[in-house]
């Protein structure tokens, strides 16, 4: 079953076409990745799927519902891990999860239990009462992941989940994402790391200048174009390493 479908999706920002007629679908339980250079339109597509931006033209449905007509219903079933830290600096680690759970109408008692489980899951249980500013970059990422899981989402959207992380923290996030895949959560991510895409994604869409230039399993793309995923990426986005 398809969790997300997009048809003829177009998004313009004040005269600039950021997404130029893309079609794709994401299946239940798979990990789907968007790859592409900066400005290719990946983040815009993610923001449309997470009901943050309305499309200029075309249609996007998530769980069979239209993103323009049913944003709140859709958002109650997705989790979003943003690229930038937007944890609430006025609240502690634990309170961040509790207050976030409230937006989903989760009862306090359940939220407290859930927050403990999630902090265990991302292994920062000993930081529960710490202020956000006292967390390391890797810990903030893990807390963002925990927060995105507060509503037990059917679809988890991750925008560059490991950008700026050291190798240990990156591995830690990958471990968690693999764990979620194992639990059949549908994952949708953007990344600049080919290794990440190869390790995690069942299928990837390579984007360039607002269009999808290829969609397939990483191993199929490598077989069709030769070399590793980075070679395929550079070839399809028309750039050589020298650029």
């Amino acid at each position, binding site marked *: 079953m398809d969790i997300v479908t997009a048809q003829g999706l177009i998004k313009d920002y004040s005269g600039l076409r950021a997404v130029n007629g893309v079609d794709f679908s994401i299946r239940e339980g798979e990990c789907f990745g968007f790859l592409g250079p900066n400005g290719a339109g990946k983040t815009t597509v993610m923001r449309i799927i997470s009901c943050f931006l309305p499309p200029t033209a075309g249609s996007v449905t998530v769980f069979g519902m239209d993103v323009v007509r049913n*944003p*709140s219903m859709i958002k109650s079933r997705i989790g979003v891990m943003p690229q930038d830290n*937007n944890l609430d600096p006025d609240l502690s680690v634990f309170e961040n999860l509790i207050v976030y759970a409230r937006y*989903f109408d989760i009862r306090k008692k359940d939220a407290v239990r859930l927050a403990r489980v999630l902090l265990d899951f991302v292994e920062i249980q000993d930081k529960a009462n710490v202020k956000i500013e006292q967390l390391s970059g890797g810990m903030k990422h893990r807390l963002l992941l925990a927060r995105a899981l507060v509503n037990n989402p059917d679809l988890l959207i991750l925008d560059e989940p490991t950008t700026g992380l050291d190798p240990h923290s990156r591995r830690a996030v990958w471990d968690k994402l693999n764990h979620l895949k194992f639990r059949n959560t549908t994952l949708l991510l953007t990344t600049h790391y080919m290794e990440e895409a190869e390790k995690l994604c069942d299928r990837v869409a390579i984007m360039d200048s607002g269009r999808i230039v290829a969609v397939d399993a990483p191993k199929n793309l490598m077989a069709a174009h030769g070399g590793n995923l980075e070679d395929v990426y550079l070839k399809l986005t028309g750039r050589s390493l020298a650029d």
Partner: protein
Amino acid sequence: MAVILKTYISNSPGGVLQIKRAFRVWQRHWTVYTKLYKTSFALNFAEPALYLVAMGLGLGAFVKEIHGQPYIKFIAPGIIASSSMFAAVYECTYGTYIRMTFQKTFDAILATPVSLDDLIAGELIWGATKSLIFGITITIVIALFGLVDSSLIVFAIPLTFLCGLIFAEISIIFVAIVPGIDSFSYFYTLFMTPLFLFSGIFFPLDTMPHVVTSIAVFTPLYHLVNICRAFSAGTFSGAVWSMVWIIAAVSLLAPFPFRLMRKRIIP
């Protein structure tokens, strides 16, 4: 209040559920406020107390009476009004702007079932709540100092909430259109300071050129000062027109924060 909720419900499909989500945003602010208030609560009184002492006692030594009242008693109800105004304005200019931009709190909230309209309604109601909190506390302090003649003053308290909504609306309209945080100095210097000085808090406006009074009747603080002063003196009659004005202004302004913030946040 009813009007703002009506405007807000008609803006977004789904009806009563949204109010609950706006309440979630309010609750977030309440959680943060109750966490920090122990350290900042005393400060809330500092500014109004300074004005009362400096103006009331300092200037009051020269200006013996205005309209038959000791000077400090004349300005006291106005201080309730101005404190509650500044509470909503600080909250919904700097507070809202910082949450929207630097802290990215809006981004985080908008990834949940809360919609932008819910979020703005939550901000507005929270701003008005801050006015209410200040309205209550300053009224108590001023009453304890014996500067209030009538217990009718308690009726001014719900009006500080309503007038707080107006200030929250104006502030959020401004947040929606400013290019950056520095622009707030224009708002404070060109709008808030004149409002504070020419709303009849420190002197009756009938001594000023006619143009000042004509402008003042179109500003919310003038009416809140009017109400606080009338109730403090134990009369309703002087306040009726101002109450009508406040209710009308809340309703007329209500659609704009929603419309302009939508324009700013959703490209």
